[in-house]
């Protein structure tokens, strides 16, 4: 079953057909979501009532488009804000972790590494409730001891950010550590020989080398945060990020408005992904 070994033609055709079918399966739901964003009807289903852009730009009932739908726009903003916070925080901590594991030998390093991987194997919903339980305990204790009402520790954006950060950091660490592993440390030593101090050497030599990984980790972190559902669901307060807001709408029944939002999301994340690939090609 490799190109250099001749195979029977029928088998080969069947195999290719299977692979084609697989990609149809992958593409089907997304294509359908995208197509019905343009259907001139109250429901994202057949029959096709004609092409319209009202679900994007429509300003009056019954067809209010995405760009005039306040709650959705606000949720989009919330998601973007949370995503940026999570991405920035997890890239910063991930970079520290990568250096820690790459440059230092210490007791308990192996244990710490395994501990660092654990968030990937804890179900997101359990991660969410454990942080919810712990932060409420801290908030309750603060109230009992000093009558402090720490609103930030109640379900809300801070907890959402922390919850997503808690597992996305593992991923950013792995991405950044993989590139740091390939770094030729003699380059840093050369900088030291030329009179730079350690920090300058890292800043001017190592960090530029890591840039593609840092950008990649930032984009991945942002997208993972933007898409996260399970952990967010348990920690969300009154400001719902987009996935939660869309989920609430979907439960009540769907209009092509949701298709339009979804299509915009698809376009947005594809652009982001392409940008990242382009950046990494160049670097």
């Amino acid at each position, binding site marked *: 079953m490799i*190109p250099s070994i001749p195979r029977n033609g029928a088998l080969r055709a069947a195999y290719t057909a299977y692979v084609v079918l697989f990609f149809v399966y992958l593409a089907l739901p997304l294509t359908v979501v995208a197509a019905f964003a343009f259907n001139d009807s109250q429901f994202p289903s*057949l029959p096709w009532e004609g092409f319209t852009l009202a679900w994007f730009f429509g300003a009056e009932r019954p067809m209010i488009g995405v760009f005039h739908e306040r709650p959705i726009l606000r949720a989009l903003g919330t998601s973007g804000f949370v995503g940026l916070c999570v991405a920035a925080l997890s890239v910063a901590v991930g970079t*520290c972790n990568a250096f820690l594991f790459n440059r230092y030998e210490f007791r308990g390093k192996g244990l*710490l590494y395994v501990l660092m991987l654990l968030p990937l194997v804890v179900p997101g919903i359990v991660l969410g409730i454990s942080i919810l339980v712990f932060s409420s305990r801290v908030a309750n204790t603060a109230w009992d001891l000093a009558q402090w009402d720490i609103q930030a520790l109640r379900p809300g954006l801070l907890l959402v950010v922390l919850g997503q950060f*808690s597992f996305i950091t593992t991923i950013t660490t792995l991405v950044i550590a993989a590139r740091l592993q390939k770094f030729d440390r003699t380059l840093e030593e050369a900088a030291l020989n030329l009179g730079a101090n350690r920090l300058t050497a890292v800043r001017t030599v190592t960090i530029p080398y890591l840039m593609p990984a840092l950008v990649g980790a930032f984009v991945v972190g942002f997208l993972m945060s933007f898409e996260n*559902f399970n952990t967010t669901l348990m920690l969300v307060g009154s400001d719902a990020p987009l996935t939660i807001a869309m989920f609430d709408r979907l439960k009540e029944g769907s209009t092509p408005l949701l298709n339009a939002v979804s299509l915009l999301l698809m376009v947005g994340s594809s652009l982001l992904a392409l940008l990242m690939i382009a950046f990494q090609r160049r670097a």
Partner: protein
Amino acid sequence: MTGTSARLGFVLLLAPAALWLTLLIVIPHIDLFLVSLRERIGVGQYTTSFANYGTFLDEPLYLMTFARTAIMSVLATALTLLIGFPVAYYIAKLARGRTRSVLFLLCLVPFWVSELVRTFGWMILLRETGLVSSLLQWAGLAAGPVELLYNDAAIMVGLVYTSMLFMVVPLITTLDSLDDAVIEAGYDLGGSAPSILREIVIPHAMPGIVSGCIVVFMLSLGNYLTPIMLGGKDSLWFTELIYSQFILRFNWELGAAFGFVLLLLSSVIVWGTLRLTGQTLRETMG
């Protein structure tokens, strides 16, 4: 590098990791366990006991939901592997050059959009007024609208779809590292396609298979969105029980016990799989 500054650098780099892991991972999970051991005996009065775990074991609905979630997740993992393996093999070994990178990218594309959008797509396809139902009626295969949502098959389709990437990518990576010459040697030595698959390809791909299976299993077990949206109200998924105890009934003690049981199951399965195949978490994930 002087001793003190190296020490300072080390402490500064260790601090974020230590804070992150203790405050967001270790302590919250210990706290979750402690809460699960609390038994409410009156208003604001608690004792320590395993009563919540007892409730879990005594109530057939809870146990059944738990078993069902575990079995469906195993099934979803097996299906994902069966469906994904040939595709991964095709991309890693048969496709060449540009086709190969395009196919690889195509595999990734669906996963740049949120699970919610993917699930929504399946709802549009499968529901009573959906595309598949209309197609069946048009083809004369069904007399009236067919409801394809809200059953186990729909949940399965959604779960397999949602986790496919996490199976295909590690498989492609490991299959890619298998030298074609080894397969040729297998043929030279008189092997047939099935025997080569069994003796050479699958053993070589084992690390990829294991890490793919672990991730897919974890994702299915912890999934909330897909079972709820595609399986409907009676989907009986364990995460739904956790959600309803925590958010709807405000019974955190029981919810925490459920959460811990879920965590235990996933840890046991991950550990068991690694043990059986002689791998470590480090090589599989890191």
